[in-house]
């Protein structure tokens, strides 16, 4: 269960210190966020059809959460959008500016995917190096400051905690300033307290960007999503868009959030006996 209140956390447990000074938005201009209309008529995995008729609408500059139990095919949807799985002929992915999506995506995995031999700084400069561009040290330094790792810039990933590693991964994702950010269960490997903190940081850092995030944690979706889609059932069906209101990150102890939580649990097929 998610910890409700960060103030109740004992001081000795705060190895993953909250960033002291948070600048909010970066000082670097953001690429204009794009909206994406995704219409997947069917998705196959190993020659077997696993999903059909998936319609997702990503609002520009907002976070959309795709919620569902493990193994339901969430990652396959993400991979199809990223172009790693072929798009079936009757499927389509449309962007609000009519330009193709290819080359405008950043990806954040549930594993930090850090290079174990490279310092934090080198890790977030990897994208520039892979593209053959000149690394932007100013931006890299600033992003590491913003995720609260100002004293860990030269540290190797092995010297960092799980939460710190995902902070580096977050900074690396933001280095590219992509119009669309795909995120696959970024906090699933973290303990509840660290996860709670990182959700707050995540919201702050990705403010104003179009994000599609996969999660299996209903409370996580409720805390940070502007739109929530639920993927569940047998056969698997996609729920209509569950629109959320109010500023993010939301307080999990909020009463209206509780009601939504109950609703989502019932949509996931959980009966009273399961809880």
């Amino acid at each position: 269960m998610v910890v409700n209140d960060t103030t109740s956390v004992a001081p000795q447990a705060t190895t993953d210190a909250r960033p002291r000074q948070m600048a909010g938005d970066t000082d670097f201009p953001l690429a204009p966020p794009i909206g994406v209309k995704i219409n997947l008529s069917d998705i196959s995995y190993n020659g077997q059809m696993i999903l059909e008729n998936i319609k997702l609408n990503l609002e520009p500059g907002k976070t959309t959460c795709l919620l569902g139990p493990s193994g339901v095919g969430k990652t396959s949807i993400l991979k199809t959008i990223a172009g790693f799985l072929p798009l079936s002929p009757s499927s389509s992915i449309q962007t609000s500016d009519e330009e193709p999506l290819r080359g405008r995506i950043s990806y954040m995995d549930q594993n930090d995917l850090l290079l174990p031999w490279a310092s934090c700084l080198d890790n977030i400069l990897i994208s520039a190096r892979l593209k053959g561009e000149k690394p932007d040290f100013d931006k890299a330094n600033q992003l590491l400051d913003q995720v609260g790792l100002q004293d860990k810039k030269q540290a190797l990933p092995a010297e960092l905690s799980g939460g710190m590693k995902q902070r580096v991964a977050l900074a690396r994702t933001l280095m590219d300033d992509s119009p669309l950010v795909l995120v696959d269960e970024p906090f699933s490997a973290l303990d509840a307290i660290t996860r709670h903190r990182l959700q707050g940081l995540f919201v702050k850092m990705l403010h104003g960007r179009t994000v599609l995030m996969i999660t299996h944690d209903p409370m996580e979706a409720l805390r940070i999503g502007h739109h929530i889609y639920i993927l569940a059932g047998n056969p698997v069906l996609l729920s209509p868009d569950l629109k959320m209101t109010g500023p993010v990150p939301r307080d999990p102890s909020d009463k209206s959030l509780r009601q939504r939580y109950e609703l989502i649990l019932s949509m996931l097929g959980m009966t009273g006996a399961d809880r």
Partner: protein
Amino acid sequence: MSRLFRITVTIGGLLSIWAFITWVTDLPKFILPSPLLVLNKLIDRYDTIAEHAATTALEILLGLAIGISLGILSAILISTHRHVKQWVMPVLIASQAIPVFAIAPLLVLWLDYGITSKVVMATLIIYFPVTVNFLDGLNRTAPAWLDMATLMQQQKRSFRLLQAYRIYRYVRIPFALPALASGIRIAAAVAPIGAVVGEWVGSSSGLGYLMLHANGRMQTDLLFAALLTLTIMSICLFYLTDYLLRIAIKWHPDQTY
């Protein structure tokens, strides 16, 4: 410290057993000389042994340099093309199935008595473990990482060859270095075998030659002295390689022996 102690005890123990056996059985010294005799011979003929050891060391080092370089190049080439592997692997395995002892006479016939045939022999047995280990490492790069790298590279148009080069340079090769290190460790351990086998078959210099020569003249103490030198050289080579590899790949947690 405790490691040094253990090594000393082990070597001391083995030497004692050896000395004890020669003392109890009183074997003639051309069958089994005592450790003291061997040591005497080692000091006595020190210049001859050093000269031959230098030849063998040169063969081993050249074999290592060529074998490792070829292994690295082959592994990279094979990993870039899926189909190349299917064609090349059977040949690689066949080359390993033929015992190096069997082709040693041929190599000496073709490449003469000099150092070349020994270097080729050492190269042949080093090449395989290096190639196979490094190839394994290159093929084991996390798919999620490659996907992410692909997304990053799609953000900018560039030549495909350049992009492939950068993926190797920044991701695949570094990830494969621990596997390459395993291959090089095996190579360092087997390289002396190649060189000495070559010397046995036909040579005019080297520790293998010296051993054969001493054996033919019943100078068993000299044979043992040469053998001891070879053993010490091989052990030093292995630990030096291991040490250098550990420094080079500090970040990897498994780099301890």
